[in-house]
């Protein structure tokens, strides 16, 4: 076997992702040692997975928004508004949770259409539109229930937020793991076959094998850990928490949109060169509206997960969330200038941020120090990103 740097460089591996994963692992190991083994315990990893899900869900679509040269500062407030609305309809107005969620979706769509139309058709910069939304919808969240907390009790609905009954169980988790691994393997084999049919050069076998085995190992390790988390007074381990399942599905769907559909391709084209996109006939305004529509769907999903996790809709739901979501996206390698970003990056970015925060909490680091460190991590990630781009010649 010929270890060839050129082969690796040409094999279209995103080294940034590899490095970020390595950083994540190092962070986990360091915290594990400092916390005397608690950090990597199944319970703590279960915690982190749940705590990250809401930010993770929103970060996947924020990648697309930033790639398209927009930004949404109002995600936290709108999510809060939608969440309180759904909780209010269930608790005070006595609607079924299904009807309440649909109404929440309708509200989210209305907000997105309004903000999207201002951005796409009237041409107001999305920064300004969503800055207004940030303030307005925080107020709306307060008005919906007159500031009163709306507790939730429906057992099925509460599962969506994880928690005691919110794991899918060991069997289902293993089935999921096997399905995912098969999926990864099939997709790799498919790619190799198609490349052969079309006469396109393929990566050497050992590279492709490695590219498949590593994600498979990660999936299996994750599921094994979730299956090891056993709450003492229950008779079976938790398995994968439902919010993580939801987050995973969201990430896969958005990834599919990015790589396999015209919509995804056009988002990147618009972000790369909006003038060129218009000149070649891409319907820029329509694509932008669709993007905001997608955003509204995911805001609703995130709101549902958030209120079921908290078991209540509070008027402060999602306060400052937009900062965390944008930070996760940027740490994950999405360039604020537009045109560049990956979904897996947003996943890693969200995990890195949450691991650092949770780890520091385990170590009793004071609140002021924690915030300072997280802010600097964000800057470090961007510095690294800029350096990486220079190295590959992708400088923006």
């Amino acid at each position, binding site marked *: 076997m010929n270890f060839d740097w050129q082969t690796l460089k040409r094999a279209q591996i995103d080294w940034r992702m590899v490095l970020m994963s390595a950083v994540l692992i190092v962070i986990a190991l360091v915290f594990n040692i400092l916390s005397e083994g608690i950090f990597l315990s199944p319970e703590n990893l279960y915690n982190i997975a749940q705590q990250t899900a809401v930010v993770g869900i929103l970060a996947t679509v924020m990648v697309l928004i930033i790639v398209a040269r927009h930004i949404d500062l109002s995600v936290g407030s709108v999510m809060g508004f939608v969440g309180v609305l759904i909780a209010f309809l269930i608790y005070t107005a006595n609607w079924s949770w299904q009807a309440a969620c649909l109404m929440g979706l309708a509200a989210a769509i209305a907000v997105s259409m309004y903000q999207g139309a201002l951005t796409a058709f009237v041409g107001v910069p999305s920064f300004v539109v969503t800055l207004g939304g940030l303030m307005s919808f925080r107020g709306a969240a307060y008005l919906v229930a007159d500031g009163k907390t709306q507790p939730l009790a429906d057992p099925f609905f509460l599962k969506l937020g994880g928690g005691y009954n919110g794991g899918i169980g060991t069997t289902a988790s293993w089935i999921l793991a096997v399905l995912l691994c098969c999926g990864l393997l099939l997709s790799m084999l498919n790619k190799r076959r198609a490349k052969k049919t079309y006469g*396109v050069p393929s990566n050497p076998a050992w590279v492709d094998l490695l590219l498949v085995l590593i994600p498979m190992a990660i999936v299996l390790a994750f599921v094994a850990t979730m299956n090891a988390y056993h709450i003492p007074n229950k008779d079976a381990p938790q398995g994968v928490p439902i919010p993580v399942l939801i987050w995973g599905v969201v990430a896969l769907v958005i990834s599919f949109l990015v790589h396999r559909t015209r919509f995804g391709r056009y988002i990147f084209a618009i972000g790369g060169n909006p003038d060129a996109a218009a*000149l070649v*006939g*891409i319907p820029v305004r329509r694509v932008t509206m669709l993007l905001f529509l997608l955003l509204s769907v995911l805001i609703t999903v995130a709101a549902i997960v958030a209120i079921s996790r908290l078991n209540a809709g509070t008027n402060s739901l999602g306060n400052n969330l937009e900062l965390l979501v944008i930070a996760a996206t940027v740490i994950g390698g999405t360039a604020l200038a537009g045109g560049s970003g990956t979904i897996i990056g947003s996943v890693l970015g969200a995990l890195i941020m949450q691991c650092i925060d949770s780890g520091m909490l385990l170590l009793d680091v004071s609140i002021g120090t924690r915030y300072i460190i997280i802010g600097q991590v964000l800057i470090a990630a961007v510095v690294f990103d800029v350096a990486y781009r220079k190295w590959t010649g992708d400088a923006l």
Partner: protein
Amino acid sequence: MNNNSHNKTAFDPNRCLVELRNIRKAFGGVHAVDDVSLNLYPGEVVAVLGHNGAGKSTLMKMLAGAYPIDSGEVLLSGEKVQIRSPSDAQNLGIESIYQTLALADNLDAVANLFLGRELLTRWRTLDDHRMDADARKVFQRLNKNFTNIRIPVRRLSGGQRQVVAISRAIYFNARILIMDEPTAALGPEETAMVGNLIQQLKAEGVGIFLISHDMHDVFALSDRLAVMKNGKRIGTYRTQDVTEDEVLGMIIAGKAPAGKAQTERPAR
């Protein structure tokens, strides 16, 4: 979408390909294009000249569907057509190579070739492999050394980026090609390549509008030339009938040369 409906091997050299009649466009109070008429026949190159702001780019952009026409008509092979968007123009066989090349720098050469007109699988997803294979063939035709088609185009040389832009016209079987300053960013070797390509396309019956500042290119490549100033057409002449000074006179002073016959038909 592959327009095989235009049969390029058999073309009637006497049937006008594009007829622009009394085209007008104003931006606010400024007449960017003021009552301009122009013809293009198959297999000929018509250069459009004028200095910045003369209206030549705007005129061509209207033909390409990038701007709507305020008033006037466009006829393709004798039939009136409505061009309201770049897609309309593309469907009619009109391809453009813009001065800026209209490339998305963050996407690779294959994606750029098919931008806006991606090939789809039967499940309506992107058919990456078919696009890859087709793109490879087209690029090879233009530049045998161009193999780096999977990296973002911002990392390609000026000439390679030009190849990608030109490939759009070739792959989608342009009947009418608009080239805006095609050799501005190219070295001598690549300029020669563009020249060869133009000859090839002419032989296939493609009509070409060439916007250029470069007098040498205009006199070397075009059959006829039209000069615009301040949105108006000053005159259209057979290239061999006028001198460089006379052309400059038209561009700068807007004065048509004395004693020269204008012509709406190609040089034969």
